[in-house]
């Protein structure tokens, strides 16, 4: 029996791979990215405080999107990619 695949679709992305330099989590700039839900900032502040025991934190900064219900704009993602070597995201509620 032949059926039509109900999940079939063509990938919208080009599928290209990008060579990424390994992140040095002990020294590299890191973004703490908030999804703008209540308490996300407090959660990320706690992570920054814990990281202070392990590494310098003057290059660990907070970033947030403007709406909890909308995706982050492409410009913001590009800005984070350009300025940081890694990002820790607060997701969900």
């Amino acid at each position, binding site marked *: 029996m032949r059926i039509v695949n109900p*999940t079939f679709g063509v*990938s919208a992305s080009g599928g290209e791979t990008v060579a990424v330099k390994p992140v040095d989590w002990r020294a590299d700039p890191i973004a703490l990215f908030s999804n703008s839900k*209540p308490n996300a900032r407090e959660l990320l502040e706690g992570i920054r405080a814990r990281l202070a025991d392990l590494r310098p934190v003057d290059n660990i900064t907070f970033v947030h999107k403007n709406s909890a219900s909308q995706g982050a704009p492409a410009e913001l993602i590009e800005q984070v990619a350009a300025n940081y070597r890694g990002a820790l995201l607060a997701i969900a509620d």
Partner: protein
Amino acid sequence: MKDTPETELIDIPDVDAEAWNELALEHGWGDGMPLAIPTQAAVDKFVAVCRGDNEPFAPVSPRQVVPTLGSLAANAVMAGCKPDYFPVVLAALRAVLTPNYNLHGTLATTHPCAPMLLVSGPIRQTLDINCGSNCFGQGWRANATIGRALQLILLNVGGAKPGLMDRATHGSPAKYAYCFGENEEESPWTPYHVRRGFAAGDSVVTAMAGEAPHNINDHGSTSGEGIMTTIENTIAQSGANTIYGKGPYVLVLGPEHAETLHRDGWTIEGMQNRLFERARVHVSRVSKENQESYAGSDHVPVNDYYKIAPTPDDIHILVAGGAGKHSAWIPSFGGTAVPSVRIAGG
């Protein structure tokens, strides 16, 4: 869960209905209820109805894949649609793919929103879409299967798997199917789609990421003023996403409430303005913590009240349902819009 091949056509063993459903569930293709088999022959009948609808589809979130007419038709077949329903399903998909509908956010959220589909225009009668008594409920094939087909597309093509990419805390029965028609015949006002700029002879699907309908019971009021008082106080809820004041909502007036409101001179614009001003929540009904949270996103009370719609135009009013002193309001997810799309050939 079994992996699904990445080809558009799949050869499976000859199966009866029971074995088919087991196979479909093993692949994660279903919503838990029985599914029809999307044989190539069945799918071809659906695709034939939409030949000529060549406008490409945007990628479907969250998987971000571009569907084919065949894979969309497969889901409509599985949902139990008739081929003639397929143009409505495609228009519904185009509506939720409108960028400001925010499909990804509405599928991935913890909020229990589902894609509410409102059908307006002549196709309601051609396809026997229920616009009257029990229009949100069971019993009409078109309502049930058109709504279900869109949900299956979002599940199978979009990849919004419950518990994985669909992160709803509770979800909603509306996630099985959420489609109804406007009761234009018993509405004293201009049909909704005409107010949105379509021709009366057009058939149109309107979508909103909404909660299941909330009932508004008013058996006692015999005046428009009385009914509006009940409506505005029912909508003024501190626990709905509308409290953030950043999204639309739909008010579905039952024909009896609509008749009384119209008799007493209420216009659509007048009701929108009244609800914008008076469907509001006093600060005493909002916790201090939430007040601080809302202030952080620039949503502050005006004269000690939180408004719950951004503008009067974000309040969408129409007539549907049958006899009885009930209306309904449908709060949205919030960060979404209410796009309307003309049904090709409808």
